[in-house]
């Protein structure tokens, strides 16, 4: 916004960085905060009310908050959600105390998210939860039919959806998908690296697990970084596994590769912090869903299933939705201080003290 002060004649203009620039007709200018505090420039004094008005957020006719950073998000989700009164006058008024308005807002509305391997299980649940929070989505998978089903589901939740058939093992295809997604959606705020080769015994499992789980994350995050850096809330969540944390009955490529991801994410959290991008890992324990690994194990190896179930401290395995909520929180601006973390989401399946 740009306005002329009717008394001083100075022109106030909001800047991309949220501050306000004040200039006179002699070509002099100064930069001030919205509270009128001088930052730099020849002009040293500004009217705080006028500066706040010009550069502060406003609600437009459509009920959307327009901030000084050019964002145009729906107003309601921009609430911080922390404003619970400290005195019990909140009981005043009809139906007060339910505090629907006071739910924590994740700040994801209107953001762009990419999830790899998002047509089933945890990946689909993550995409659905992000869509429910108001994100537009780019998803990939190997199967066209699964992508179409997922697209319809996500569009039904109000998301704009970009899909592409990609084998994450194919590095070029993956990086092309990431670039295409950023172009189609108009940027990227959230990158979720979910694709996995899955388990498998023996030496032959190592190469595909390395290519898909590890290099999929390395290449995907690499391709996404320039876009995430442009977001004001860029974040990466990499899906690891409790298999990385504790011995699971036999040595496997899967366990070691998932461990590599935690290490990689931790390094990336340091490397990308200066660009404002957060990187975290989520390590799910056993997650049961129709068509998932544990359903298969339950039928094929009931003893193993029973023993895993017995280890779940909460008495059941997790659901994809429960994992998705943890992922979506970490991916969101609500988790703005969390980076380099590995969030274990396993209902007490692992027994170590997680220092």
């Amino acid at each position, binding site marked *: 916004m740009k306005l002329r002060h009717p008394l001083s004649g100075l022109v106030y203009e909001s800047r991309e960085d949220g501050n306000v620039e004040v200039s006179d007709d002699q070509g002099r200018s100064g930069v001030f905060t919205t509270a009128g505090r001088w930052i730099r420039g020849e002009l040293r004094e500004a009217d705080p009310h006028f500066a706040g*008005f010009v550069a502060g957020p406003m609600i437009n006719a459509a009920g959307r908050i327009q901030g000084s950073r050019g964002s145009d998000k729906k107003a309601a989700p921009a609430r911080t959600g922390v404003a619970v009164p400290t005195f019990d006058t909140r009981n005043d008024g009809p139906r007060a105390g339910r505090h629907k308005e006071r739910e924590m807002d994740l700040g994801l509305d209107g953001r762009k998210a990419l999830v790899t391997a998002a047509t089933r299980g945890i990946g689909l649940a993550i995409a659905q939860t992000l869509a429910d929070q108001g994100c537009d989505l780019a998803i990939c998978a190997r199967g066209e039919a699964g992508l179409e089903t997922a697209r319809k589901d996500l569009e039904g939740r109000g998301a704009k959806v970009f899909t592409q058939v990609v084998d994450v093992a194919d590095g070029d295809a993956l990086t092309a998908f990431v670039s295409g997604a950023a172009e189609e959606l108009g940027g990227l705020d959230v990158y979720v690296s979910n694709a996995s080769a899955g388990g498998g015994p023996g030496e032959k499992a190592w190469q595909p697990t390395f290519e898909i789980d590890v290099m999929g994350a390395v290449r995907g995050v690499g391709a996404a970084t320039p876009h995430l850096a442009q977001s004001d809330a860029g974040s990466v969540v990499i899906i690891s596994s409790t298999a990385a944390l504790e011995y699971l009955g036999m040595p496997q490529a899967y366990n070691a590769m998932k461990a590599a991801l935690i290490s990689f994410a931790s390094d990336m959290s340091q490397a990308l912090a200066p660009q404002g991008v957060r990187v975290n890992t989520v390590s799910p324990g056993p997650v049961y869903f129709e068509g998932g690994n544990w359903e298969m194990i339950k039928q094929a190896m009931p003893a193993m299933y029973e023993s895993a179930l017995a280890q779940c401290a909460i008495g059941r395995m997790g659901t994809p939705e429960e994992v998705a909520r943890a992922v979506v929180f970490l991916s969101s601006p609500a988790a703005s201080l969390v980076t380099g973390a590995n969030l274990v989401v396993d209902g007490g399946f692992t027994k170590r003290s997680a220092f």
Partner: protein
Amino acid sequence: MATSPTIEYPAEIPAGQGPRSSGISYQQLLDDDTRSVPEVLRWESARELPVVRVPLERYTSREFHDLEVEKLWKRVWQFVCREEEIPEPGDHMVYEIAEIQILVVRGHDRKIRAFANSCLHRGRALKDCAGRSENIRCPFHGWTWNLDGSMKELPCRWDFPHVDRDEYRLPEYRTGTWAGFVFVNMDPEAPSFESYLGDLPRHFERWDLAKRYKEAHVAHLMHCNWKVAQEAFMEAYHVVATHPQILAGIGDSNSQYDVWDNFSRAMTANMTPSPHIDYEPDEQEMLQSIVTTSLDEAPMLRVPEGMTARQLFAQMARMQLQSTVPSATDLTDAEMNDSFYYTLFPNFHPWGAYNRIVYRFRPLGNDPDRSIMEVLYLAPYRGSRRPEPAEIHWLDYDEPWTHAPELGPLAKIFAQDTFNLPKVQRGLKSASHSHATFANYQETKIRHFHTLLEKYIAA
């Protein structure tokens, strides 16, 4: 208490009379209206008001707060809620003033009653929050009253031979309703609600606030005394410094101020230039200052040749109102453009015409440095079915008003207003002078408020 040896306050000037702004008067502006002007806008009432300065500790001291509780809040008629917030038998809400809670209940006879929110057994608050229930039952031991306050049930009746059912009715406070607003008074000796209101209902006959619904209700916690907050909304004197962006289109210092017995009114015109600016803005500039058009954007509205900004804005407002207010075509340019802000002592501020605003200001607990500012929007609606009232949207001390999108573009104006308030409270604590000094005319409403407050405190 701050006393100053440095300032000798001169004798107080006679109020009510005295100099006025050189700008066009509000009454003169009404002469150019395109519709016939209703009587209510023509009424003028200036009165002698003895108070032109008040001691600063009135805003900062716990002692004065305690006096307010005893002498003001326990004796005065005060707005508690809207009738439609407790529409059905058993609906209730808990009103809070300082640390006193009052339970407001609609009975099976549809009457609204108010009780001290305290169990006659050992004092537990009877209700913690708003809701609907068949009776009033204390959650602690189960003492239960009917909705009309008569005792219903006392567990282990045999153990209370000393309790007489009739003597243990819930003590009831007086209630009154006007235009859909429910008021309570804790003082049995207080004048009747009708006599307290005086002529106020006549002022609102044309803008029936009963047939409105609560479109928005935002409650903002404030780091300042409730009177500091309230007084920022009782004059247009602050516009020149606090809302400079609208100066091209607001008749601030030439507003009209009137007082009656327990209420006061200000009328501030829009789409007329402020006497503060030293140039003559054209009609388009006036319009843009009010609807906020950025210099680097094309204006959304253009004032057509031969029309004034005031006429154009009125015409647009009438079009918008028409679907809910059939008489909109006859409403004056003044009602479509201007602000008519009333104050019913001590803290209730309904606006006239269709601005929708109602303010209420209350102390928060017993802390003279904290308060609650509430903004209600009462909007007209269509048809016989009143839309559900909005729930209270709480905003924390430092939370921006723009977090309440239901307030629309005014949120930014409220932000400018309340930007100063914690700084006022801070300044009051740093003062070496002893009194706040009010303008003779433009702060008439505040002087009227303090005149009445002194009357209550002295009683």
